[in-house]
């Protein structure tokens, strides 16, 4: 009877341990403990590259404290980064302009997005990401 009960408990522990390894429980717990939300988001969406969560977050907290409208143009094929920032809205007048993944900022390249770069002043730049404001 006791042996049968022990065997049952062993199977329960075995299934439990398989669950923990299968769902990466200990790894997830460690990472949740040591990595903050923003760090985890940057590890997934990148600082400057792809969705560029880190760059937009930086622009939002340093340059857009009192405004919530911005236009984000990504030169690579990705869904809009705007979805990750629920308090940011599309700037139809294009006063605040964020350009992501642009290796060269020539005029021809930007015309297809209806942007004349001469109308803008560069505020901040990191690698292939730029933040412009209308002059």
């Amino acid at each position, binding site marked *: 009877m006791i042996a049968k009960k022990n065997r*049952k408990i062993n*199977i*329960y522990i075995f*299934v*439990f341990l*398989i*669950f*923990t390894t*299968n*769902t*990466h*429980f200990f*790894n*997830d*717990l460690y*990472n*949740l*403990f040591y990595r903050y*939300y923003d760090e*985890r*988001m940057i590890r*997934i*969406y990148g600082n400057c590259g792809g*969705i560029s969560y880190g760059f937009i977050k930086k622009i939002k907290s340093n340059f857009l404290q009192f405004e919530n409208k911005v236009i984000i143009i990504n030169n690579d094929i990705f*869904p*809009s980064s*705007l*979805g*990750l920032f*629920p*308090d940011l809205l*599309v700037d139809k007048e294009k006063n605040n302009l964020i350009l992501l993944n642009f290796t060269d900022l020539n005029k021809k390249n930007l015309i297809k997005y209806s942007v004349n770069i001469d109308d803008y002043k560069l505020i901040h730049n990191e690698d292939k990401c730029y933040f412009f404001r209308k002059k």
Partner: protein
Amino acid sequence: MTEIFSIIAQLIMFFFITLFPVNNISTPFIYKSLGKSNFFCIPVNILILLFIFLICSFFPINLRNVFFFIFVTYLLIFFYNFYKICNEILKKENLSLKFFFIAINLFLFFDLAYNLEIGWDGLAIWIFKTNNFYNGYSYFNLFEQEIAPEQYPHLGSYTWAFFWKNSLIEKEYFGRLFYQYIYVVSVFVIANSIKTFSKLKIIVTIFCLILLSQDYDNTLQGYQDYLLFSLLIFAGKLIQTITSRNNTNNLLLNNFFLLSVLIIPWIKNEGVFYSFFLIILFFLSKTTYLVKFIFSCLAILNIGLHAFIVKFIYKLDSLYQFSFNTILLLFKNFDISNLAIKISYIFLYLFHGFTKYPISILYLLGILYIVKYKKITYQNKFFFIFFLMQCLFIFGIYILSPADLVWHLQTSIKRLILQTSGFYLFISIWVVNKFGKKIFP
């Protein structure tokens, strides 16, 4: 550390909010008709909750106010039956199942909290709808934004926004945790439907079901497919209970089934078809003609409401991603060799989909068994007929699709397979319940 505690608090909140109004203490008569199963009360409460969300989504009501209203109501019921409910929760009965329910939820919650990635459709479509509700707007404001496709339904996004807004640290992924919770509940519902299994076998079954249906790279990244998967399981369980003895004319059970029929079309466009299929199944049950008539009218009105808003109020071109003109054009340029190529591609990608979500092999075995040994009975014919309708639906949409067929198949067929795979598992459950002792002694 704050985040870990908030996740645990969120799980407690999910559990609390889905513990009411239906349970064995506050509504013993409903509990009785649900087969005296606590794991079956939670899905019914989820259906009621989602129906409340559906109604609230049409009005610009602050999500915090909705939460406050629901939470206070449930809190009153809780304090009214405080001792009885506490005793029930802390009962030693089903202790191992309760422990694994909490543990699996936490494992999956932590996994989601670390892997925060939202999939392509999640970022391109669903999160914009979620942001709309998160910012306090209603369903009708979605049509003004012109970012995400407006004709897509919104209930999943509303749920996401609701639990995002009403979480302790207000991070986006807290809303998505509810999708995980519903998924775990649905897996427990399936496993608990196997009557011949001991608790240990049920836990092993739950483990296998999660292993076979969960796609860790792509799971719950804002996609709505697992929601449909779970809701169809709830509908399936209701069909199973209604068609069992003495329950055919149980109006309460029929009403819960109607709730699932009304909710499903507002999750994803495919849900409209599933809703139709469920109503057809309801017609085959032994319920009275009056109930059948009223329910089908309500279901058609519900689907019609969505179509009316999209097509006539906001005058959008395509209702369900394809217009009738393209279908007419396809019939005009009908070519048999082209059709054969299309069908062969569909078969190829169906096979790929089955390997992606091996849970489908479980129900295919069940279907093969009942067909081969001619065991199609009153209880399992509903699931079998749904399967046939789903096959027609899959072939129909891909043959009529105006988009590039290979791209369309690559991006969507595996998700269509997943959505209904839980529903057909009731056929395999029927087989195991009937002949389980021979197969699993």
